[in-house]
């Protein structure tokens, strides 16, 4: 049951993709409505830490589904509408983070947490870069606005959240997983 091949897409991926999406949706809805105060237009979305965690723990398909569906649900719940490029950007964040899955065996080990965080960081940059550049195409803004107005603040906010919460999530998960004897 614990087949750790990266691109497998079976029952496990379906279930955790859905759970990740629902968690991401609910959490981003809460923070869309009650934003954490921040400087400028940086937004801190704790939901992103959960998304990266699901990617790291369950692989790229789960990250992609959780990010894409979750962001769509969160936006729809808060009445934003459907911004497919931001949803796909979130999906990319989860997918890239998920590529590290097979390399993580001990969620408590410091070096593996750092490795997961690095994949998360790359994922955030890739996902947010994609969404910001698409904003240029969809929203008709210029490249400077896309990078300074969207990419930089979104990336900084997400990196901070993941940096703080991902290690906590991974350590907590190690405890849960060992109790279940996995």
């Amino acid at each position: 049951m614990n087949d750790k091949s990266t691109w497998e897409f079976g029952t496990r991926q379906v279930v955790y993709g859905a759970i990740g999406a629902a968690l991401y949706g609910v959490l981003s809805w809460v923070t869309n409505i009650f934003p954490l105060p921040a400087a400028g237009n940086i937004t801190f979305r704790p939901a992103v830490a959960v998304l990266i965690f699901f990617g790291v723990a369950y692989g790229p398909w789960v990250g992609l589904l959780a990010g894409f569906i979750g962001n769509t649900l969160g936006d729809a719940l808060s009445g934003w509408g459907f911004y497919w490029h931001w949803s796909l950007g979130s999906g990319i964040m989860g997918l890239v983070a998920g590529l590290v899955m097979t390399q993580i065996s001990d969620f408590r080990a410091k070096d593996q947490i750092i490795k997961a965080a690095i994949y998360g960081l790359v994922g955030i940059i890739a996902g947010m870069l994609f969404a910001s550049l698409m904003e240029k195409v969809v929203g008709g803004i210029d490249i400077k606005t896309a990078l300074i107005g969207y990419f930089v603040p979104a990336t900084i906010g997400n990196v901070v959240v993941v940096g703080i919460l991902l290690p906590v999530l991974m350590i907590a998960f190690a405890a849960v997983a060992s109790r279940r004897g996995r």
Partner: protein
Amino acid sequence: MLVAWKYRPRNTFIQRLDPRTRLIFLFCVIFGVSIPEIWDYRIVLPLFLVSLTLYLMARIAWKDVKRVWTYILILVVFIVGLNALLSARGGPSSVTNIVSPVIFTVPLKIPFTQLGWDIPVTVSKIWFSFNQMFRMLTMTLLAIPIPYTIDPNIYGTAFRQMGASDKVSFTMDLAFRFLPTFARDFSITMDAQRARGYELESMEGGIFSRIRRLAPLIIPVVMQSTVTGEEVIDAMDLRAFGTNRRTWLKDLKYAPRDYLILGLGIFIFVGCCVLRWGFGVGGYFVPDFFTNLFL
């Protein structure tokens, strides 16, 4: 703090529609407005009225949606509206490129210094912020009734019959079903932690410690969900999920009323594209009557 929505069977035109029809219609309107970038009030306003009519036809009791609407109106008016007014964010560049009379300036300065900006509020920005609010409400009016009026049991079937694979449909189905559950879990966890003296709203410490303080709320819910996941996987494996093509309990069929609404949706989408790209109508401009109000 969190609201779990409730679906109720109602005998309305909207609820007799096929869920696929409603999702496709929603996407037609969203794509119709956003892909060709419609900012013309002569198109936005009629679409708003169509959405409003459909929303009212759903006959959702006001007490059910009161909280949702409160949040959304705060969001739309204060966050989106004010943002649009000050920075014209989220709009086409023509909002700030158009020569437009300045009504007043908002000084955004660090107190007692000259550091900061004087932000000019132009007629164009005021008009844009109205447009932006109505555009958002047009889409919101269609999206809000969905959880209240589509039976949670048919999301999976709806996506399956729109051509998604069994696995993807089931993911959507499960995600929709878990959403209110997790919303409830968060609010229970919040109450439980508060009873132990946890203060989420406390303003102490910087942003980093505030984010760290979210851990007692997030960790229990996420960890519980991973355990729930294992149980759901066991249950699905016992039913041989993924071994073969699945049959679904409900079968959806389009009725004439669905073709009517689908036709309207396609008309809106194609109409917006043709007007914008074919005739050059639908872009952003400030109508004279609005400018004249301020002169």
